[in-house]
């Protein structure tokens, strides 16, 4: 028996998380030298706001990817929810009721995804692709293609405010989501079950794990995170429009993957997607400050995904 030496938990996650932190720090140092206005209070809080929404989407997406699934609808949900919440506020509903109703709709959409996967046997890619297109359609139909402006100032001011005068509210929401996510993924049995069905759902089922409930949980969490982002987005731009957040699902997936989430399932963490999202946001922000052509930004982002994921592969192979 040689099983007595116990290495620290999660030997894999911590160093990789650390590399991402270092990468982020490196980018910040480089940008603060390369530009004169990067390290300004205003830009940093701007950056925090920009990264926050993708971070929350990516975190929700990670729950699904850990189960070896995918959720392509998160951007569409966010766009759809801007319409919903704008409409409800225009009808005179109080903010708390509009927020709860929006999150409830997110829950319903997630449950529908899980229903399609579990009961109809559809691949996650297909069912979420279907809602991706149809949600945008429904949103446009509801408003007849128009944009609803939000006149409720209390609601729109949220995105401009901050906590203790330093932490932008949007970033505070990321922290408020990250803490429960950390507990959930690492320290609850349901978090473990996500990994179990991502690794081998048949083995999980034979071990008494309810694959059905776990699947519902994953897609509902993802859709509710997306609904939350929809609320934040509506608050930030002050309008409801179903075409908003176009392509954000791909940014969210990219952020998750940069953060070490494996698209084959069973590998992922709570902090990886957050770091991934802020790395992406930093690159975009820095590129803007340096007046880099926005077409180049996309190419840089694509190249970065390849470099980071490839280096992660190399690191895993060495073990």
């Amino acid at each position: 028996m040689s099983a007595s030496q116990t290495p620290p938990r999660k030997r894999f996650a911590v160093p990789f998380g650390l590399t991402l932190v270092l990468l982020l720090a490196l980018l910040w140092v480089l940008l603060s030298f390369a530009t004169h206005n990067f390290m300004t209070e205003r830009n940093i809080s701007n950056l925090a706001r920009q990264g926050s929404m993708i971070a929350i989407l990516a975190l929700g997406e990670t729950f699904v990817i850990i189960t070896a699934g995918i959720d392509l609808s998160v951007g569409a949900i966010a766009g759809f929810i801007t319409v919903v919440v704008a409409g409800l506020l225009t009808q005179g509903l109080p903010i708390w009721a509009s927020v709860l109703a929006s999150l409830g709709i997110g829950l319903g959409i997630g449950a529908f995804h899980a229903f399609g996967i579990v009961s109809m046997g559809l691949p996650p890619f297909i069912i979420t692709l279907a809602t991706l297109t149809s949600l945008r359609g429904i949103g446009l139909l509801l408003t007849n293609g128009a944009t609803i402006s939000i006149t409720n100032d209390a609601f729109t001011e949220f995105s401009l405010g901050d906590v203790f005068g330093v932490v932008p509210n949007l970033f505070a929401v990321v922290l408020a989501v990250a803490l429960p996510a950390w507990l959930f993924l690492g320290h609850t049995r349901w978090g473990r079950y996500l990994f179990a069905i991502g690794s081998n759902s048949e083995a999980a089922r034979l071990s008494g794990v309810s694959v059905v409930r776990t699947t519902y949980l994953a897609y509902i969490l993802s859709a509710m995170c997306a609904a939350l982002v929809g609320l934040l987005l509506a608050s930030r731009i002050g309008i409801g429009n179903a075409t908003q957040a176009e392509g954000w699902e791909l940014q969210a997936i990219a952020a998750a993957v940069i953060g070490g989430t494996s698209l084959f399932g069973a590998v992922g963490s709570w902090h990886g997607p957050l770091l991934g999202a802020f790395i992406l946001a930093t690159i975009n922000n820095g590129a803007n400050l340096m007046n880099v052509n926005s077409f180049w930004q996309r190419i840089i982002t694509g190249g970065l995904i390849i470099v980071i994921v490839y280096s992660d592969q190399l690191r895993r192979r060495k073990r």
Partner: protein
Amino acid sequence: MALAGHSDAGGPSVLLELRGLDKRYPGTHALKSVDLAFIEGEVHAIVGENGAGKSTLIKLLTGAVRRSGGAIVWRGAEAAIETPQDAIELGINAVHQEVVLCRHLTVAANLFLGDERERAGLLRHSQMTAEAQHILDDMGFAIRADALLSSLTIGQQQLVATARAAQRGTRFLIFDEPTAYLTRQEAAALFTLIRRLSADGVTIIYISHRLEEVFDLSDRVSILRDGQLVLTAVTAETDEASLIRGMINRSIDQVFHKEQMVRGAVMLETRKLCGRGFSDVSMAVHAGEIIGLYGLIGAGRSEFASALFGRDPATSGEILWDNSPVRIRRERDALRLGIALAPESRRDQGLALSLPVGFNINLPIFHRLTRGPLLDGRRETTCAERQIADLSIKAPSRHVAAASLSGGNQQKIVIGKWLNHGARLFIFDEPTVGVDVATKAEIYRLMGKLLREGTAIILISSYLPEVYELADTLHVFARGRLVASHAHKAASHETILAQAIGG
């Protein structure tokens, strides 16, 4: 058959020779300077425990890994087998334990994969199907060439892999546990093919844990232990007992470890239970006993066990648990009662291989390891470490992925899961498929330990000696029915086989 003794092993009939072949992996010395000669046309069996170096030897010969030292000599000249392509060009092929073919393609497409018949750049489907069918018929395998590979049983897929390896100019063919998933008929067809290939001058390495096959097929046999060659002998001049001694330094009586237990109360009873694949099965299972279920594949024994575990619920009849009727409609019903299943295919059903050992052990009991909504890390550690220690699971730590462990140790993880869960009735479905003698002995000893703790065991096996030696009551299944029941060793092997075949 051109079989010579040791005296002229260096003579012109040697096809392939290993000289001081050595392989080191980081942390392990997998093969220690092995000298071994293979004579053209012989069937050379290699036996040894898991981890003895057999797979490393195969990997070196097929170019999957590079040697660390020594030489491989092919027809008297040193051969640099560095890549799989090198091995194939020499005519060295292997049939692996796990089928490595494309499940979505047809049998014919798999047979000709990489070597397709074309005309003007287009595939000649019908020609390939016809040729493939001819090859399969010729080999005596009852398989249709136009069937999709995924529609075949694992055993049939194994035969396709064999046919594929045998038909492409092979001079040297390696079989790794080929019969693990085969039915008796399929195994018989395979043996015929092996004998024919050998008569045609193909040299064969045959690796198996089933020693009776080694004696049935091989001309010579070599034993590996801890990466070293223990001995090479003419098979006819040795016997099973000395092979086992050579492999494990332990005598055969200790392999089938049967303890006399006091039979307890009736735990489970079925009355005229019917379901998919079986009907009218009535039996009782007492605490402290092993019930053996023997039968050919498809005889209904596994289907019956599936019904007990709620995977494929029974359609009629009664199940009594502790003398009161219960309904088992889903796995979770069975788990709640305390019925656990160690499935046949650990890879597909038993374990989350990419996840850590400790995770797998605790998977069924995470709901008990919580304090409030959160998991209690200390109790997780205790539960996992206790099973690792009790079952002497050989793992560097509970954090390593289950995939990195040997088959025997993976089986122990499955058992550890259920011990943790506190199951009272264990259903073992083919627990020792592809497991070496020492691990087998350990699994049997473990069963004894389970029984001492007041549990009962249902042991399903296609390997007659196993159920024969271990079961307190042996039920024979044929064509979906329970056709005979015997007390421990009350009937002969021949009788039981006849009942299983004749029905």
